[in-house]
């Protein structure tokens, strides 16, 4: 008797669970699952949460529009997963999402997690739009499912190289990188851009993310007397490096990528950070097409400021929903070609993809430290 009853409960539970994946709401709308992945725990959980909120805001707004696809009223649901910024965890949650019948995924946040996860989405035919992964490899694997709504490191390296030679007038250039996928990738692109622009690479030096002493390589660089020092790496090294540059009496300009354009850099470099240049993909929030409104809307709903990439996560979600609308289908195989042909006026700017799924004409903004704050200098590219 007891056995029979528990069997009945198990069967009932299975039926409920089976329906849960693609059931209907109380008012008869069909539920469509969109996945979101980012680091929701750990040291950069504030950024993951920020992306989740951006995507969540887009889903809520889309649902308010009472969308109808192929004659069926639709309700979107965001299934958010935590990859802990860990590449191994990323593949596990990617598979979990694929198994929960998602029709597309917004994520992941880091390049290191996005790349391994993209293989799983590609094999399952699930369209993927990353808000913030910038490593070149992600879109260079010939995956039709991989897209991103932010300029990649190749575009960033080119802009930085051009800017160093043409705008800052630097001819002799020294490059340092931290041997990480991001730092090395960016420094390689920067180096080839410098050569194309007619600049001269005086030396290429290396460090790693465990070091805080750069005096030996900086002294060598001092002997070569470069106009500019470029660093491919993160703020934790760039801060102390900037101090040592000034202490050694080097007068070269300092330029770096988006890993350095943070408040943490300013904290670590202190007064010696003054005058440093760094870039960041995209426009500053206030210059984005819908930036100001988005900031206010976000603050009103979540009672907290945007951290970093929320507008990109918001756009990534809407680009996906927009493609489903145009395809008049939520079937990944049917709407995927429409996603590739997107031309969408997003909060962050006009979004179109090239044949690899990279953002076409992605813009890069440059900033300089003035009186202890990152001050916007100019935006390069983006007009296309």
């Amino acid at each position, binding site marked *: 008797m007891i056995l029979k009853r528990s069997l009945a409960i198990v069967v009932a539970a299975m039926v409920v669970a089976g329906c849960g994946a693609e059931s209907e709401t109380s008012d008869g709308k069909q539920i469509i699952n969109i996945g979101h992945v980012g680091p929701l725990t750990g*040291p950069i959980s504030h950024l993951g949460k920020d992306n989740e909120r951006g995507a969540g805001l887009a889903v809520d707004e889309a649902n308010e529009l009472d969308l109808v696809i192929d004659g069926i009223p639709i309700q979107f649901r965001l299934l958010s997963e935590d990859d802990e910024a860990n590449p191994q965890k990323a593949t596990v949650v990617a598979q979990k999402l694929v198994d929960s019948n998602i029709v597309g995924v917004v994520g992941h946040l880091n390049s290191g997690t996005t790349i391994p996860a993209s293989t799983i989405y590609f094999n399952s035919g699930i369209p993927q739009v990353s808000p913030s992964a910038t490593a070149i490899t992600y879109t260079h694997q010939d995956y039709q499912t991989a897209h991103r709504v932010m300029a990649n490191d190749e575009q960033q390296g080119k802009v930085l190289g051009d800017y160093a030679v043409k705008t800052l007038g630097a001819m002799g250039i020294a490059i340092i990188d931290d*041997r990480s996928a991001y730092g090395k990738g960016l420094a390689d692109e920067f180096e080839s851009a410098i050569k194309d622009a007619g600049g001269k690479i005086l*030396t*290429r*030096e*290396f*460090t*790693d993310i*465990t*070091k*805080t*002493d750069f*005096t*030996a*390589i900086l*002294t*060598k660089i*001092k*002997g070569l007397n470069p106009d500019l020092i470029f660093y491919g790496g993160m703020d*934790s090294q760039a*801060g*102390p490096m900037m*101090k*040592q540059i000034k*202490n*050694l*009496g080097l007068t070269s300009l300092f330029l770096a990528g988006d890993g350095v354009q943070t408040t*943490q850099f300013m*904290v*670590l470099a*202190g007064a010696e950070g003054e005058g440093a240049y760094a870039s960041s993909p995209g426009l500053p929030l206030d210059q984005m097409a819908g930036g100001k409104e988005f900031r206010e809307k976000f603050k009103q709903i979540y009672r907290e400021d945007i951290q970093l990439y929320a507008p990109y996560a918001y756009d990534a979600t809407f680009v996906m929903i927009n493609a489903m609308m145009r395809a008049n289908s939520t079937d990944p195989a049917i709407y995927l070609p429409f996603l590739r042909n997107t031309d969408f006026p997003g909060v962050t700017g006009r979004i179109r993809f090239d044949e690899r799924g990279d953002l076409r004409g992605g813009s890069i903004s440059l900033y300089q430290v003035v009186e202890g704050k990152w001050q916007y200098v100019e935006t390069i590219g983006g007009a296309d």
Partner: protein
Amino acid sequence: MDIFAQQVLNGLVLGSVYALVALGYTMVYGILGLINFAHGEVVMIGAMIALAVVSALLSVFPEMSPFLMIALAGTAAILVCMSLAFFIERLAYRPLRNAPRLAPLITAIGISILLQNIAMIIWGRKYKTVPQIFPTETFELFGANITSVQIFIITVSALLMAGLLVIVHFTKLGRAMRATSESQRVAGLMGINVNKIISVTFMIGAGLAAVAGILIAGNYSVAHYSMGFMLGLKAFTAAVLGGIGNLGGAVLGGLLLGLIESIGAGYIGDLTGGFLGSHYQDVFAFVVLIVVLVFRPTGIMGERVSERA
């Protein structure tokens, strides 16, 4: 030429810190034959405690003289590190003193991981900025730039090392330490309290480590929970290079390692025609270590140790 002078100076600054830390390794090894892998973490704890004290003082008494502030922070860091070393020795190493040699070694590695994780829980994972309480002034010396902090590092290290040599060679405590390192059993028979001498040795090493931590944090203006690990490894290398167990050897090994790293990173690219770059900085230092050990297995100044074993 001034570039070379600058590289030598960079090497001396780096090397004097290595030497301070290496002394802690070598003192403990000389007496117990134990490689105390947790020593690098004691350096980190010293830096973190000093940083916490300075931050607290800055927020409560912003007008306090920087000399008094650094004296208070230094005292606090030294006291905490000394008591930490006392308890580590008492709780983790002493019960294993007669165990096979591998057991205390593994315990030391365990303590190192434990301390790192405790620091991570208390102070977080982020790089912490060390407030600049002294204005940094830059001077020129033989065409090289040297900051006031770097002068301070070299001076303090030199004084401490000289002080330690005086203690070990000219005081009653030093004689007891040397006797204990010759033979614990015989020293005990001569009326020396061996347990006390071993505790004191650990505490002196920890005091030096605390100072080294403060100097490093002050020089680079950053401190974080994992800063002690690589430093400990390098200082251990320095101790082996100079001849582990030998105090003069630790000082020499530390300074040499600093110079090798600095000059290696600066010139390796030119010497090999660009074949090897500055990412071989660490490799270069370890290659020198291997070469020295091939020709002198006991290190540069390490004859006495080989007889002892």
